[in-house]
Every structure is written in C-alpha cells, then in structure tokens.
C-alpha cells in the first residue's frame, strides 16, 4: 500500500525539497518588485520625482521672486550674490524662474498626455471592444489626425488659435489622442480575441463587467507604458511651441520661452542661457529612461 499511497500523492515527494513557498504576488506587486530591483530606473524615477516636487513647491523653495527685476543685476553668471544660477535678461533670479517655469513646462507636457490617455484610451477600448462600424468610424477619424506629423499639427492648431497656454495644451492633447487611441484599440482587439473573455461571458458576466475586470487590466499596461514614453515628447513639443512664441506669454516663466528670450544674451552669460535647455533635456531624458524601465517591468511576456 505504501507505494500506492506514494503514487496517490506524488506531489509530497517534491514538497520537502521545493524551496519555501515564495510569497505569491499579484501582477502589480510583481511589477513593483521588479522595479525595486532595477537600480537605473529607480535613480531616474527619483530624479523625476525631485523635479516634480521642485516645481510643485516652487513658491517655498525658490530663493527669490521670479518676477522681481533688477536692472543692475542683469545677466549675471552663476553664484552672483546668492543667485545660484545667475540672473536673466531682466535681472530676475534664474533658479526661481527655473522652478516656477518647471510648473508650466511640466504641466504643458504632462496634462495633455493625461487627457489624451483618458480620451484616446476610452475611444480605443470602445472602438476595440465594439468592433464593426463603430471601430472603423473611430479609427478612421484618428487616422486623419495621424496623417499630420505631431509638430505640424500642434503648430497648426496653436498657430491658428493664436497661442497661449490653453491653446498650446489643447493642440498637444489633439496631437497625442490619436496615437493613444490606436495603442488602446490594438491592445483591446488583441485581448478581446482571447478565450478568457469568452469564458467570462460564459460565466454570465455582462459586457461592463468583462471590460472592468478583464479588458481594462490588460489594456492599461500597454497604454500606461506608451503614455509614459509620450511625456518626454510632450515636454519637448511644449517647449518648442513656447520657443516659437505659441505657448506661454511673457513675463510668465517657461523653459521654452526662457530659451528663446535668452538667445539674445548668449554671448554675455552662455552658461545661464543654457540652463533652460539643460532643464528640458534632463527632464525629458529622465522621463524616457523611467518609461523604458516601466516597459521592462510591466511588459512581461507569458
């Protein structure tokens, strides 16, 4: 009987040698687990966090009032009278303007991506799930906007409407909605064709329940990864619009606009004039690297 018993419960033989049962992680825990063990992404994620916090708490940490001019203190190099990063063409403190400017540059970059993710994502899921005429209608309109290179579409809309933060953000949202919708639609159509959707329907789940529990979970991954990669593109595009005078109006601080107005004084204090450019570069490269890290952590093949 003994061997029968053994046969009866073959698993036990292995149980003792198997390592202690590792804690079972849900999908999101495993993503964070992988992220925690990826030093490169952690470093850049903390830099991004630092930048966002610095912009958020600009009023508290900015050493000077970003709008206070002092003609005597015009275009001074780094470190001139506690102006760590020097002063701009009107003698305003560069560090303070950089912090306050961060608010606008970041929001002009991040907000349109968020809105585009919401609208584009929703349209994509609806189009992907409904299929048929609805899908064609949505996707073909998106294709029309897809036909414009992103810079061109942003410039066309902001240019026609006359610039300003609101128009700039609207233009960027319109630029990012089509690609976001396309990513969501592709992900949704792939998911919809999988068997567990049919299994869910077979267990009596309504379409809403299916979308909520099965579709969204799987679509959010690729959508979120793609959105994170769009942020750095958005920041560059937003600063480009300001550079062309289509974004923020003076005297409001914004990295793109500061870069443009400081072009005139590049011979007096080249380092100070480079500061906004460096800020744009660091922010966008950090967002890019964090996005790559996220993709590696989340995009787990079965």
């Amino acid at each position: 009987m003994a061997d029968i018993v053994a046969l009866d419960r073959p698993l036990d033989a292995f149980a003792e040698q198997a390592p202690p049962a590792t804690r079972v992680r849900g999908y999101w825990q495993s993503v964070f687990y992988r992220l925690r063990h990826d030093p490169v992404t952690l470093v850049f994620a903390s830099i991004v966090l630092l930048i966002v916090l610095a912009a958020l708490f600009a009023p508290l940490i900015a050493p000077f009032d970003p709008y206070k001019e002092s003609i005597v203190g015009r275009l001074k190099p780094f470190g001139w009278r506690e102006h760590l990063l020097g002063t701009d063409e009107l003698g305003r403190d560069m560090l303070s303007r950089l912090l306050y400017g961060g608010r606008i540059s970041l929001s002009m970059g991040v907000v349109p991506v968020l809105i585009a993710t919401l609208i584009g994502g929703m349209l994509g899921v609806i189009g992907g799930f409904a299929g048929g005429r609805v899908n064609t209608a949505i996707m073909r309109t998106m294709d029309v906007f897809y036909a414009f290179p992103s810079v061109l579409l942003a410039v066309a809309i902001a240019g026609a409407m006359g610039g300003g933060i609101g128009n700039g953000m609207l233009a960027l949202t319109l630029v990012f909605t089509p690609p976001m919708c396309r990513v969501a639609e592709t992900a949704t159509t792939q998911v919809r064709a999988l068997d567990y959707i049919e299994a869910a329907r077979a267990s009596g789940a309504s379409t809403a329940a299916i979308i909520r529990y099965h579709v969204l979970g799987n679509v959010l991954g690729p959508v979120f990864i793609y959105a994170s990669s769009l942020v750095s593109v958005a920041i560059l595009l937003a600063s480009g619009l300001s550079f062309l005078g289509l974004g923020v109006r003076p005297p409001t601080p914004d990295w793109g606009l500061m870069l443009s107005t400081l072009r005139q004084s590049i011979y007096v204090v080249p380092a100070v004039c480079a500061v906004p450019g460096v800020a744009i570069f660091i922010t966008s490269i950090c967002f890019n690297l964090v996005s790559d890290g996220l993709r590696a952590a989340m995009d787990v093949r079965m």
Partner: protein
Amino acid sequence: MAEVIALSPALDPRDRGGPLQPMLIARDLRKHFPVKGARGKSVQAVDGVSFTVRKGETLGIVGESGCGKTTLARLLLHLIVPDAGELIFDGEAVNAPDGLSVNALRRQVQMVFQDSYSSLNPRMPIRDSVAFGPFIQGREKPEARNIARDILAKVGLDPDLFGP
C-alpha cells in the same frame, strides 16, 4: 432510453431531474451565418443537430476545422442564440418562459479551452480567475475567494500558491 443505468453515482442534492434524466438534450439546433456581400447565401454552421448526453457520460464531437464544432459549443452555452431548435438542460428547457434562465444555465456550464495561454487572464491571480464565476453570479468577494480556495484544494492545488 429505458435501459437501467448501472448503480448511479451518489445523489447530488442539486440534481433536479433525478439520476435517470439526461444531462443535456439538444433537438434540431440550427445556426446559419449570413455571408457578407452575397445576400441570401449563408454558411450553415449548425443545421439540425440533435443529441442526448446522460449524466456521467462523455460525448466527443469530431470534425475537421470549420465544420461548426465551436459554433455548436457556443450554442450550448447560449453565447450565440440558435436560429431554431431546443435545449433541455437537466430536464428544463433553456431560455423558455417556464424553463431555465440563461443566467442559471451559466452557473452550471463552462467551457474549457484548448490554448491554456489565452484562457487565463495574465493580470489576474489564478484564485481570482476561479473566484470570478461565483463572484459574477452575485457572491461577495471574500465568499467567492473561499469557494475558489476550496476548489483549488479539492483538485490538489495548494491555494496559498495561487493567490496573494
């Protein structure tokens, strides 16, 4: 139909029709798909299929790909509505006014898919996939989870390994 079943398995309290009532009876099931473009012509996926499956019996349906096996399976679960024909599940007509509601049918019937990779939601722990059925049929989350844990244990899977 009158032969006596050998000693029937232990009575299951939910067994409505009694041990002798065939589990599933299909009578003249029909499902045709209109062909886009060519009006009038249609693909006769399932045309007048009838069979009976008794309790404890296993029915195998064999056919080349595209002969309507999957369509038939979907018809049995009412995932697609048959054009004609009748479905009797454990003595009650499915989707008939006095018979078994489709939702009730769904509680007792499920599909098992060929490709295991696509039959489980990768973003959901196994225990939650198992608990999804009872949860969607109205059970509270904790209760559904316990049901899932019991089932996993019953089939020899250690529940702790399959869900946080």
